C-alpha cells in the first residue's frame, strides 16, 4: 500500500497505487491440505469424536476454499462424505430390523440431524453463497436429509418395517399399552414428514389400521357397554385421537382420521344408540348425557335423527297422557311438566336449536289433538282449579307462572272453541258464585288469552266482567232507592247479577216454585230494573242462585250457604218435619234429576241437615226426608252448595254439543260468506277457502254435509253442467 512517500516538499505529488509486483500465490497443495483438514473433521463429527481443530478454523478453511472457487469441489466432496456416512449407518440398521429397530433408527436420525447441523455450521459460507446461487443444489441440511431418505428407500424392506412399526406402536397405544414411547413415535413421524415419506406409505397404512381397529371396537363396545358408557367412551376416543393427531401426526391427517373414527364409532351405530338410549336419557333427564349424545351426533351430521327421536319421544309421551282416561286429572299437569322438561333438554343439551323448537311444536300439536275435545276441556278445567278461591300454593307470581306454562299447552290446542266454551262456563261459575280467588288474576288471564288469540276470542269473556261490574252499580242503586226498600219486607238481602244474553253460557231454565218472599223480591227487582232500562226483559236463572239461610237446630242456630234449590227444599220444612220425596217434588216443582241431586247434597253429603229414610246411598222416589234437629257442627257457617260448582255429566255434554252446533253455524256462515262474494266456485277451491277461515278442525266429510245442507236449503246449487262447481243463489 503506498502512503505518503519521500516527504520532500514540491509540487503536489500524486498518490499512486501500483499493482503488486508479484501475484500472491497459494501454497502448492492448498486445496488438498485444506480439504483433508475438513474431511478429517467431518469424519470426526460423524464418528462423534473430538474434532482436532477449532470450528473457527474450520469455518475459515471452508470459506477459503470457496473463495478460491473450490466451492463445487467442496460441495461434491461433502455429499460424498455424507453419503458414505448414511450408507454406513443405515446399512448397519438394515441388517437388524428387529424389535429395537425403531428406537435405533430414531437415535440414528437424531444423531444424523445433529451432525448435519454441526457440519452445516462449518460449511455455512458454502451454504449461503454457492448453494444459494445454484438453484439445482439442495442446502446442506436438506442434502443430508435427502441422502438419508434415499438410503432408507434403497434399503430393502426398511421403509415398510418403519411405517408398519409406527402403525403398530400407535395401535398398541390405542389398546392402552403404557410402554409406548411417544417421543420415538413423535420424532420418527416428524422424520417421515421431513423426508417426505409420510404420505407415501405411512398415512395410508395408518388410516387403514385405524379403520379396522375402530370398526371392531365400535361393534364390540356397542355390544358390551350401555349406551351411556359407550358415548362416554366415544367422546374419550375422539378426544384422544384429536390430541394424538395434534401432537404427533400431520395436521392434514386430522380430517380423514376423525372422519374414520366418527364413522366407525358413531355413524354406523347411530340408530342403535338413539334407539336404545335416547328415551331413557330424556325420561331420567340425563342432561349431561343428552348433551354428549347431541354433540356426538351433531359431529356426524345426525342432529336430524336426534330431532326425530325427540319428536317421537314427545309424541309417544304426550299421546299417552292425552289418551289415558284413567289419569285424566293429571293430564294437563303431565303435559306442562313434559313440555318444561323438553324445553330444558333443548336449551341445555341441544343448543336451543330453532329447528328443534318448530318440530317439537308439531309433535305436541299432533299428540294433543289426538283427542278432539278432551285436552281443551281439561286445560280449561286446570285453569279453573288454579283461579278458584281456596287454591293453595303460591302467591300471584306463582299463579302467573302456572298460567304461562298452561298457556303453552293451550297454544297447541286446535279446537280453541271447545276451550272457550268450557272456560266460559267455569268462569261464569267462579264469578257468579263468588268463587274466584282474585279478579286481578282473572283479568290478567284474560289478557293473556287476548294477546294469544286476539280480542275476538276474549270479547265475550270481557263482557262477562263488564256485566259483573254493571251489576254492582245496579245493586247499589237498588239498595239506595227508598221506594224500593219500602217494598221489601222480609229482612232479606238480594243481590242480582244482571247478565247480558250472549256473553254468558246459556243455562237451561230449571223451574222451581220459589217461596213467597223470593217471588216478592223478584217482582220488586224486576220493576226496578225495567224502569231503569226500557225495552228489555229479564229472565231469572235459578240454577246458579245462592242463598245464605239461617237454620234453627235443637242445639244451635247455623248459617248455611246453599243453592237456590236447596233453599227451596229447606223452606218446606218451616211447615213440616218430615216429607216424602213426592211431597217435595210436588211442592218445589223442581225436575227429578235436579231434585235428586239437591236432596242428595242435603242428606248424604258432609253436612246432613236432612235425614233420609231408608239410609241408602241413592235418592229414590220412595224415600222420606226429615229435618235433622239434632244437627250439630263446630262451625257457625256451613257451605253445602258445592254441587253447584261441580260439573254434571249433562252440563259437560251440553257444553260440548253446543260447541259442535256452533261450529256448524260457523261453517254454514263461512260457506255462504265465501259463495256470496265469489258467486261460483269449484268444490276444491271452496273447501280450501273454508279451511282458511275456520279456526277449528273439521273433517272434509263434515264439510260436505254442510254444503249438501246448504244446497237443500237453496243457498247454493250445483252447476248444471259440472257437478263439481257450486253457484250461489241470491
Amino acid at each position, binding site marked *: 500500500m503506498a502512503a505518503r512517500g519521500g516527504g520532500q516538499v514540491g509540487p503536489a505529488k500524486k498518490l499512486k497505487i501500483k499493482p503488486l509486483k508479484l501475484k500472491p500465490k497459494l501454497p502448492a497443495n492448498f486445496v488438498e491440505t485444506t480439504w483433508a483438514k475438513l474431511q478429517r473433521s467431518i469424519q470426526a463429527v460423524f464418528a462423534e469424536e473430538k474434532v482436532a481443530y477449532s470450528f473457527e478454523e474450520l469455518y475459515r478453511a471452508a470459506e477459503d476454499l470457496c473463495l478460491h472457487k473450490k466451492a463445487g469441489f467442496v460441495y461434491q466432496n461433502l455429499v460424498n462424505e455424507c453419503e458414505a456416512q448414511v450408507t454406513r449407518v443405515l446399512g448397519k440398521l438394515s441388517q437388524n430390523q428387529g424389535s429395537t429397530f425403531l428406537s435405533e433408527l430414531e437415535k440414528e436420525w437424531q444423531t444424523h440431524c445433529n451432525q448435519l447441523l454441526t457440519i452445516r455450521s462449518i460449511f455455512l459460507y458454502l451454504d449461503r453463497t454457492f448453494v444459494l446461487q445454484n438453484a439445482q443444489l439442495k442446502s446442506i441440511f436438506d442434502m443430508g436429509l435427502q441422502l438419508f431418505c434415499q438410503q432408507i428407500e434403497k434399503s430393502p424392506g426398511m421403509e415398510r418395517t418403519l411405517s408398519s412399526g409406527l402403525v403398530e406402536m400407535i395401535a398398541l397405544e390405542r389398546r392402552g399399552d403404557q410402554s409406548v414411547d411417544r417421543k420415538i413415535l413423535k420424532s420418527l413421524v416428524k422424520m417421515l414428514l421431513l423426508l417426505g415419506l409420510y404420505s407415501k406409505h405411512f398415512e395410508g397404512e395408518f388410516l387403514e389400521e385405524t379403520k379396522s381397529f375402530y370398526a371392531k371396537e365400535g361393534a364390540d363396545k356397542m355390544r358390551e357397554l350401555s349406551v351411556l358408557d359407550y358415548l362416554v367412551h366415544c367422546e374419550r376416543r375422539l378426544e384422544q385421537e384429536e390430541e394424538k393427531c395434534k401432537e404427533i401426526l400431520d395436521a392434514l391427517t386430522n380430517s380423514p382420521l376423525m372422519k374414520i373414527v366418527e364413522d366407525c364409532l358413531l355413524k354406523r351405530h347411530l340408530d342403535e344408540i338413539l334407539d336404545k338410549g335416547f328415551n331413557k336419557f330424556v325420561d331420567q333427564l340425563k342432561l349431561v348425557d343428552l348433551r354428549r349424545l347431541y354433540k356426538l351426533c351433531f359431529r356426524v351430521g345426525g342432529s336430524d335423527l336426534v330431532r326425530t327421536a325427540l319428536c317421537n319421544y314427545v309424541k309417544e309421551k304426550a299421546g299417552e297422557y292425552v289418551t289415558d282416561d284413567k289419569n285424566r286429572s293429571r293430564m294437563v299437569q303431565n303435559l306442562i311438566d313434559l313440555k318444561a322438561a323438553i324445553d330444558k333438554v333443548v336449551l341445555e343439551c341441544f343448543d336451543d336449536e330453532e329447528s328443534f323448537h318448530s318440530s317439537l311444536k308439531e309433535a305436541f300439536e299432533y299428540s294433543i289433538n289426538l283427542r278432539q275435545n278432551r285436552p281443551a276441556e281439561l286445560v280449561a278445567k286446570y285453569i279453573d282449579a288454579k283461579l278458584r278461591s281456596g287454591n293453595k300454593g303460591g302467591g300471584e307470581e306463582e299463579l302467573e307462572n302456572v298460567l304461562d306454562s298452561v298457556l303453552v299447552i293451550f297454544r297447541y290446542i286446535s279446537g280453541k272453541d271447545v276451550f272457550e266454551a268450557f272456560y266460559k262456563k267455569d268462569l261464569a261459575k267462579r264469578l*257468579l258464585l*263468588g268463587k274466584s280467588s282474585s279478579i286481578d288474576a282473572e283479568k290478567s288471564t284474560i289478557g293473556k288469552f287476548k294477546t294469544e288469540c286476539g280480542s275476538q276470542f276474549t*270479547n*265475550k269473556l270481557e*263482557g262477562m266482567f263488564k256485566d259483573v261490574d254493571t251489576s254492582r252499580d245496579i245493586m247499589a242503586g237498588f239498595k239506595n232507592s227508598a221506594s224500593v226498600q219500602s217494598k221489601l219486607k222480609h229482612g*232479606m*238481602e*238480594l*243481590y*242480582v*247479577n*244482571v*247478565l*247480558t*244474553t*250472549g*256473553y*254468558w253460557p246459556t243455562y237451561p231454565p230449571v223451574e222451581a216454585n220459589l*217461596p213467597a218472599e*223470593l217471588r216478592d*223480591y223478584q217482582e220488586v227487582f224486576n220493576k226496578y*230494573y*225495567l*224502569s231503569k232500562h*226500557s*225495552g*228489555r*226483559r*229479564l*229472565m*231469572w*236463572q235459578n240454577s*246458579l*242462585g*245462592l*242463598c*245464605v*239461610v*239461617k*237454620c*234453627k237446630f*235443637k242445639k244451635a242456630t247455623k*248459617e248455611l250457604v246453599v243453592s*237456590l234449590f236447596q*233453599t227451596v227444599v229447606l*223452606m218446606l*220444612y*218451616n211447615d213440616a*218435619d*218430615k216429607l216424602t220425596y213426592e211431597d217435595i217434588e210436588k211442592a218445589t216443582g223442581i225436575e227429578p234429576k235436579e231434585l235428586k241431586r239437591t236432596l242428595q247434597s242435603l242428606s248424604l253429603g258432609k253436612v246432613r241437615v236432612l*235425614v233420609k*229414610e*231408608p239410609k241408602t246411598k241413592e235418592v*229414590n222416589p*220412595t224415600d*222420606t226426608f*226429615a229435618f*235433622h*234437629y*239434632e244437627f250439630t257442627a263446630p262451625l257457625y257457617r256451613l257451605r253445602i252448595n258445592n254441587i253447584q260448582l261441580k260439573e254434571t255429566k249433562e252440563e259437560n255434554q251440553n257444553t260440548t254439543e253446543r260447541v259442535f252446533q256452533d261450529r256448524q253455524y260457523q261453517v254454514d256462515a263461512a260457506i255462504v260468506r265465501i259463495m256470496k262474494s265469489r258467486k261460483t266456485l269449484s268444490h276444491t277451491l271452496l273447501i280450501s277457502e273454508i279451511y282458511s277461515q275456520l279456526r277449528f278442525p273439521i273433517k272434509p266429510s263434515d264439510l260436505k254435509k254442510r254444503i249438501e245442507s246448504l244446497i237443500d236449503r237453496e243457498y247454493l246449487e250445483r252447476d248444471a253442467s259440472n257437478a263439481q262447481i257450486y253457484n250461489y243463489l241470491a
Partner: protein
Amino acid sequence: MPGSGVNMTVDAGPVPSGERPRAFKVKIKHWRTLASWSWNAGDDVCGICRNPFDGCSPEAKYPGDDSPVVWGTCRHAFHLQCITQWLSSQTEQRCPICRQNWEFKSAEENEE
C-alpha cells in the same frame, strides 16, 4: 223400594217430634241470584241486518248494551245502528218495513 215406607214409621230415628216450637226453622238471609236480560223484541231478528236482536248488529262488536234495540212509533224494532244507517241513507224518514213515517218511540211510551 217396597219396604221403605214401613221402615220410616218404625225407625223415626233422630227426629223427635212434638217438643220443638213450630216457629220458623229456616229463614233466608241473603239471596244472590242472576237474571239475564235481553231486548224485549221477541225472539225475532232485526229487519235490517237479519241478525237476532240478542246478537250483534253488524256495526257493533258486542251484543247487549253495544247493540241497542229501538222501536219506532209504528212498533217495529231495529238495532239502533241499523235503523240510523238506514235513515241516513234515505231521503224520506220511513220505517223500512211498513213505510210509515219513522219516529223513535220514547222510553215512557214503550212501557206497557
